């Protein structure tokens, strides 16, 4: 039996090689069909991974509450000269969350506000972020020079900061950055670390409370609280504006991913009690990820379905050319039948040929798909991941295509009347 299969295979191979152009044209459909399927699957896998990376950065167990300026304000007082804005999250909220909301593993406050950073006579518009040291670790803020903030900085109420590299260059500073003194607002801070400049995605910015244009200066939350306070006074055309936002952000980490949605509900209840206005928003990376995932899946399946159509066309091409081949080899079929070939032998012979062509086309298609996916990835700036799974799948599909679409021509060949076939041509 094995000998017969080997013989069939070798015969099929020889017929393939004997007519190289025809074999190539036959296989072409499958080549591109498989190629597109592989490319689409690779892009899909890349998209998935990118999504996970994007949200993984923010922490899937995190719930981020950002203060936001409310549309209508009930408590603002306006006189002819002063405007008082007081909104957003407070230290009281922080306490309440810590005390009343269960299932939380940590809570991190952030106070951020726009400030001018000075060095000598040069100034740059920046944002001052007063954070707990753990915050930098949680959001993957890494120092390329020096270090990030530590617990010692907090307990020691040190006036230290870690800044983005771009801020440094805009201030016209060169040379050793560590130890430089910067005037931020009305306080001097010593630089202990430079953070890498990263291109962040929109959702990441929103979650991390970052403006795309300004550059961040990170200082210990404890230091700012003790030394500078949270009020900002600005002067504008004669009138003065005072803004007091105690906390611009609270990051709550749930103990387990399953608890996140429940914790969000409880947070909302706790905050609603003490906030009359809508001066905060809750950002849940996990929810956003789930949503995006769903959309992405639909897209992925659509892409793969479209790619599969080209595979279908490839299969039809095989059937078509095989029918022509059968007609061409009618005489041969008649001879084999006269010599005792049963119908199933004829079917096996032609089916082997189509399967071999389709599988070889599939293998070439994998290579083509590999190339296509990397080309597309380079063009769209997505990533492409060709997994062994997808290769195996594509090869089985091409083999299956060979079998399914080869069946019809093979049966036609087998059902030929030997006598008529011998007379043919």
């Amino acid at each position: 039996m094995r000998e017969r299969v080997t013989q069939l295979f070798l015969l099929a191979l020889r017929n393939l090689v004997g007519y190289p152009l025809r074999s190539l044209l036959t296989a072409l459909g499958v080549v591109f069909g498989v190629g597109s399927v592989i490319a689409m699957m690779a892009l899909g896998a890349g998209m998935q991974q990118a999504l996970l990376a994007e949200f993984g950065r923010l922490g899937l167990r995190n719930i981020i509450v950002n203060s936001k300026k409310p549309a209508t304000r009930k408590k603002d007082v306006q006189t002819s000269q002063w405007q008082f804005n007081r909104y957003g999250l407070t230290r009281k909220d922080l306490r309440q969350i810590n005390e009343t909301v269960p299932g939380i593993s940590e809570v991190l406050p952030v106070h951020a506000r726009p400030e001018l950073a000075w060095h000598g006579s040069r100034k740059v518009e920046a944002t001052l972020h007063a954070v707990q040291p753990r915050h930098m670790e949680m959001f993957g803020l890494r120092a390329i020079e020096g270090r990030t903030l530590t617990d010692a900085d907090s307990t020691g109420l040190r006036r230290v900061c870690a800044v983005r590299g771009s801020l440094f260059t805009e201030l016209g500073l060169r040379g050793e950055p560590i130890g430089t003194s910067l005037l931020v607002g009305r306080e001097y801070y010593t630089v202990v670390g430079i953070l890498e400049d990263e291109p962040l995605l929109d959702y990441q910015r929103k979650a991390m409370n970052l403006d795309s244009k300004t550059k961040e200066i990170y200082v210990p939350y404890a230091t700012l609280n003790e030394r500078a306070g949270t009020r900002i006074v600005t002067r504008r055309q004669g009138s003065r504006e005072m803004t007091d936002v105690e906390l611009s952000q609270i990051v709550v980490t749930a103990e387990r991913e399953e608890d996140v949605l429940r914790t969000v509900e409880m947070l909302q209840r706790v905050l609603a009690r003490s906030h009359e206005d809508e001066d905060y928003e809750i950002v849940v990376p996990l929810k956003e990820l789930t949503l995006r995932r769903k959309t992405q899946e639909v897209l992925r399946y659509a892409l793969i379905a479209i790619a599969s159509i080209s595979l279908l066309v490839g299969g039809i091409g095989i059937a078509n050319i095989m029918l022509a081949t059968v007609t061409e080899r009618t005489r041969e079929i008649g001879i084999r039948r006269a010599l005792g070939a049963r119908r199933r032998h004829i079917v096996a012979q032609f089916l082997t040929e189509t399967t071999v062509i389709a599988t070889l086309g599939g293998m070439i298609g994998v290579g083509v798909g590999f190339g296509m996916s990397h080309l597309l990835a380079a063009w769209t700036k997505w990533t492409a991941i060709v997994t062994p799974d997808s290769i195996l799948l594509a090869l089985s599909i091409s083999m299956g295509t060979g079998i399914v679409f080869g069946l019809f021509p093979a049966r036609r060949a087998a059902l030929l009347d030997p006598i008529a076939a011998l007379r043919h041509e």
Partner: protein
Amino acid sequence: MASDCGLPVRTSEGRRRSGGAGLSDHVLALRGVTKSYGQGDARVEVLHGLDLEVAAGEFVAIMGPSGSGKSTLLNILGCLDRPTGGAYLLDGDDVAGFNDDQLSLIRNGRIGFIFQSYNLIAQLTVLENVKVPLLYRARGQGGGAQRAQELLRTIGLSHRLTHRPSQLSGGECQRVAIARALVNDPILILADEPTGNLDTKTGAEVLELLEGLHRQGRTIVLITHDPAVARRAGRTVRLQDGRLKEAS
């Protein structure tokens, strides 16, 4: 070509037990075989009740002009077609009622075909052509590759094993066809105008080959329109307008 070409003699192991009453030594027997095509008004009867018996080891020539139903008879004898009526007993089995698979097996194992136009497969080498019938043997029968090579050697074509039919002369092609016909040790050799496409000299060589096979005890039925060819056989039967008549 030597008159004794050293072709393997039929061994007793190759001969099947024959069944049926009174047919113990006949390789084939036709009893009232008819063949017609079409239905109703368009019905054409090509063979009208043929009777024929061929004993083991006979060399029979069937002669007839074109239109006499020669091809039809050949197809029936070769189990490529079934008679419309009557019985065809081949080595004791009535094959008239056999299905396609069974007939195929019979063609493979019991009959060796030799065609006027050789009918070799162009993409295969000489050796591979001779081995084709081995591919389709009944389950459980392996091997035979040695036999193929041996046959080609005795027929004098060992030096052409890897050549394609297109590289051979007509006579060589027919000799390959003969080797192919013998590879499964058939009980009957059926030759349809074997010298029809050959010149006189080559044709004579092929006929000598066939005579050699006959001398070794093989049963040969040869179809021809040429009386000179028919004379080489031991017995001639005439086919005229769908009926058989003994001639010599």
